[in-house]
């Protein structure tokens, strides 16, 4: 049997595979295949782009012989397959469609290569074709060792925010992945929002995109890693975002005020869902200016890493349910001095402006507005995640909503803007509001 790793390297679309089929009358047919995907040790999928002789043949005679060449070693393989079915939707199809779009763009075939379906085959037998080969190059990073080292720090993280930091730091230090970010899912709105990033000129914390848009959005929708070795505009998040903003009114115009942080000219991208109990908690996204930067082994390692992060994240959420209430009887902070700052809240989308500067919107905006109202009316500065979750004013979309991620977003956004309001952690599931100036709160859409 061919080592799985070699088979997967061959299927990555660098060198097209060759497919041999046979008509019922015995007439052979040979065709080039753009892309394949390893599914498990018994199955693989090949791209189906045109209803041609190959497809006619395999509907009558499902036996196929696939010729592959390893892109580094020149080793040739032959895989004997039996056609089983064609899938035209779902995770396998979407993952192959994204990859094929990259290959098509890279090979100047964008208008021609469109995935009609993913043909699923059972692997009957595989053989190594005798011939000369080159030694396989040693990878600069050993993904398994990098994964182990990176994972060691994760359980030491005291909260969700430092967990995400530990993961992104680990990607830089051990995987030599320079550009990475984490987006969390807002299940009520089917959108993802950036909570942490590394390697970009601006953090992009607070930027959003729609589930289903681009590499990240498809990974979230299909709950499957999407890895593209040659990036194409079809899956570029930036383009999808601009188009979205043009269609929409004020609400989406605000999103453009926090631009997505991604590379202007990415070569490779990989988006890995962070699994939750039902829908994904979010997506880990890495990219590089270099084409073909991320291997199958990188994908495997990042899937394992994201699974670990997802598990720990859910543990934090569960612990928060058990955390203490905010302590009462804490002395009030002395009121700040200086000129007052006007803080506006637009109820239509819960956007908050500090002075003339847009800060944040959505659930995170509503959380801040709730905190500021209590601060203004009661002088409160101590809060707990648990009471916020129960507070009807916060209007969390549903019980499973990821409040912790929204607080990470709010904390980072306030810190980045060096706002006169800051959040400071005071313990597990508890935090304190720091206000540096007198505030004038204005609810702009009351009565409308």
């Amino acid at each position: 049997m061919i080592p799985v790793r070699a088979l997967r390297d061959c299927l990555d679309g660098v060198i097209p595979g060759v497919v041999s089929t046979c008509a019922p009358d015995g007439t052979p047919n040979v065709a080039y295949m753009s892309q394949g995907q390893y599914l498990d040790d018994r199955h693989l999928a090949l791209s189906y782009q045109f209803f041609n002789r190959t497809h006619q043949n395999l509907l009558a005679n499902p036996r196929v012989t696939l010729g592959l060449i390893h892109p580094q070693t020149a080793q040739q393989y032959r895989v004997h397959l039996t056609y089983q079915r064609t899938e035209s939707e779902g995770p396998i199809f979407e993952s192959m469609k994204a990859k094929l779009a990259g290959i098509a763009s890279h090979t100047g075939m964008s208008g021609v290569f469109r995935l009609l379906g993913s043909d699923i085959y059972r692997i009957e037998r595989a053989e190594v074709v005798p011939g000369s080969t080159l030694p396989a190059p040693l990878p600069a990073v050993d993904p398994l060792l990098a994964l182990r080292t990176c994972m060691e720090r994760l359980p030491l993280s005291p909260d969700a925010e430092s967990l995400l930091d530990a993961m992104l730091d680990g990607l830089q230090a051990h995987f030599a992945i320079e550009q990475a970010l984490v987006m969390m899912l807002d299940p009520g709105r089917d959108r993802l929002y950036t909570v942490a990033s590394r390697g970009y000129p601006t953090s992009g914390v607070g930027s959003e995109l729609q589930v289903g848009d681009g590499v990240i959005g498809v990974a979230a929708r299909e709950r499957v890693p999407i890895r593209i070795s040659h990036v194409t505009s079809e899956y570029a998040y930036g383009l999808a975002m601009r188009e979205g903003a043009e269609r929409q009114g004020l609400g989406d115009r605000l999103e453009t005020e926090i631009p997505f942080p991604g590379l202007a000219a990415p070569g490779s991208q990989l988006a890995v869902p962070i699994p939750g109990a039902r829908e994904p908690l979010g997506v880990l996204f890495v990219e590089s200016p270099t084409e073909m930067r991320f291997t199958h082994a990188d994908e495997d390692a990042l899937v394992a890493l994201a699974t670990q992060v997802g598990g720990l994240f859910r543990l934090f959420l569960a612990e928060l349910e058990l955390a203490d209430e905010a302590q009462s009887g804490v002395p009030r902070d002395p009121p700040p001095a200086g000129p007052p700052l006007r803080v506006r809240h637009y109820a239509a989308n819960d956007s908050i402006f500090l002075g003339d500067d847009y800060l944040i919107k959505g659930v995170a905006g509503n959380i801040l507005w709730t905190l500021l109202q209590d601060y203004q009316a009661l002088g409160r500065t101590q809060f707990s995640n648990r009471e916020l979750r129960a507070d009807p004013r916060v209007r969390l979309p549903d019980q499973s909503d990821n409040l912790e991620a929204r607080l990470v977003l709010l904390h980072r956004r306030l810190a980045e803007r060096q706002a006169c309001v800051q959040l400071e952690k005071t313990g597990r599931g508890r935090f304190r509001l720091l206000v540096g100036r007198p505030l004038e709160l204005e609810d702009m859409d009351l009565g409308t």
Partner: protein
Amino acid sequence: MPAHPTLQLDPDLARFIAGGVSINAGSASATGVPSLCRAFGCRVEPDAGRITVFFAAPQAADLVRDATRSGALAVVFSEPPTHRTVQIKGRDARLAPLGEGDLACVNAYRAAFAQCLVFLGFTEVMVRTLLDCPDEALVALTFTPSALFNSTPGAQAGTPLIPALMPPPAAGAP
């Protein structure tokens, strides 16, 4: 034995398939299991109307067994930079001894294919390794084209190319 009609390859097509293109050939067993092998170049004999394709014998065992049993052979020629692809099928494939000049033909093919792929970013050593084979291990399958297809990717893929149809060779001709 019935004579097969001979398809005359036009000079452009003959030049194309004899250039630095990727060549793969397929046949099938009596039970319909397809065979497949990468070729190391080809020779076109316009006068005889035959095409001879070269392989490394250890790689081509299944293909040679199937093609010489049934005579059925499909050969696909594809130019990597342009994706121009042509498939030529025959029904009378047989093993042929390597003739004078065939080694030079294989060597010229290796150089032309390497040059084509180096232009696309592959290393020459990679292509040379792929096409490496001791001279004495080369074998040749020869066949008369009976059908030509445009196999360039796209909706038109699989449509027959209309060639000039030549009269079958006279009885007793080689």
